[in-house]
């Protein structure tokens, strides 16, 4: 189990590096393949709750470390309406929420229905980007949702989802190499007995 967990963490770090090679496709409204969130989503369905939270923290931390913007700066008398940015660390929460969503269908994954997890990975990416965009609107005010933003969210999640069978295959190979059996070990309700 520890060997598998470590290899999944290493896979996540490798995905973070691979993400640097993923360009935005200008012809598709700047959509791209989000390898790091995809690896996280595929991995969360195969690990327990505690490992999922650890992965969410690592991924969210690395994501924000690469993408958080500096404050606008400049003279506040001239720039009277500074544009707010999302706080460093918000992605940790978003990743954990995506992870919880994925863990909800862990029993199906255990039964071998990986294609449902694959579909849900696309939906989770869509919800992640949509929530991120809504958060930007919330902190900056003046709600704006142009069709181009929707196309970018939709195309990014669709493109990313196409790669999920490959990631699941890598995860199965890792589990096999580590002699780890992927089993449902998420949040369980303890049985209650009536006196």
């Amino acid at each position, binding site marked *: 189990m520890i060997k598998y967990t470590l290899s999944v963490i290493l896979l996540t770090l490798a995905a973070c590096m691979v993400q640097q*090679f993923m360009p935005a496709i200008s012809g598709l409204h700047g959509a791209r393949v989000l390898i790091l969130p995809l690896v996280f989503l595929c991995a969360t369905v195969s690990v327990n709750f505690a490992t999922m*939270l650890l992965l969410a923290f690592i991924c969210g931390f690395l994501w924000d470390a*690469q993408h958080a913007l500096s404050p606008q700066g*400049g*003279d506040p008398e001239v720039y009277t309406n500074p544009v707010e940015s999302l706080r460093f660390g918000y992605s940790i929460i978003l990743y954990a929420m995506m992870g919880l969503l994925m863990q909800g269908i862990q029993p199906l994954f255990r039964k071998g229905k990986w294609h449902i997890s694959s579909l849900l990975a696309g939906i989770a990416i869509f919800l992640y980007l949509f929530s991120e965009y809504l958060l930007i609107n919330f902190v900056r005010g003046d709600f704006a949702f142009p069709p181009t933003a929707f196309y970018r969210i939709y195309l990014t999640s669709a493109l990313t989802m196409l790669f999920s069978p490959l990631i699941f295959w890598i995860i199965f190979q890792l589990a096999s190499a580590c002699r780890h059996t992927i089993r449902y070990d998420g949040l369980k309700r303890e049985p209650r007995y009536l006196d």
Partner: protein
Amino acid sequence: MKPQNLIALLLFIAGAVWALTRSEQSVRSIQKTVYSAISPFITGGSGLETTATEFIKEVEHSQAWETKYDLAKEELDKKRIEVAYLRKLEIENAQLNQALKFQQEAPFHVLAAKIIRRQPSTWWQTVTINRGEKQGVGVQLTVLSPEGLVGKVDAPSEETSTVILLTDENCQVSAKVDGTPEVGILSGQRGQTGDKPNLRLRFLSKDATIKPGMLVFTTGRGGLFPADILLGTIESFESGPLYGEALVKPAVDFAALKIVFVKTPNSPESPR
């Protein structure tokens, strides 16, 4: 919930709170460390992209050669290719000359930098350049091209820096409309995509006489950007209840941008 899950959840919450309460300085320090770790991959990615582009071009050339071979015009094709290559060199030479001329004529000290990665994040309009703190690049420094203002440095690391583009909503510039007393704040628009996004010039007078085609320059106020740098041209003007707002077409073609110049903090009296 199992006890170990509860402990994991509490630890996670503690970690998330720790991350969310980091000061701006700590965040910059974290970012610098992460960028230093991944910069070889960013540079490698840029190299790989160039190799892939060259390979695709090579394949295209090979196919063209084959067609021309079938037409039995080998010698003529050879000459054509030579001419095309010379033209390419000529264009490259002109671009480099323009860049060099800009660097020499700029009234301030500038540092040439190559764009090695475009738009690394989903929602922010940013690029990564191959110059960092080792070369004197610092946060909030102005980034220019011979056509006009490109943006400002957002997060410099040792070897590379992230530049926030003028097309991002977060990059606000104090701007003036040439030939009028109108002054406003120029910024990008949220959620827009495409190669040529328009900019918003807000807080103009509602009864301003602004016509399409008028030039927009930086005012130099606000302590971020030097004065009289071209930003773009007015596309349209709309009067609101309190303020007027104009759509501005950027002077810089951000999709074609390859080399930019960072205005380094040397005294303006010592132009290079």
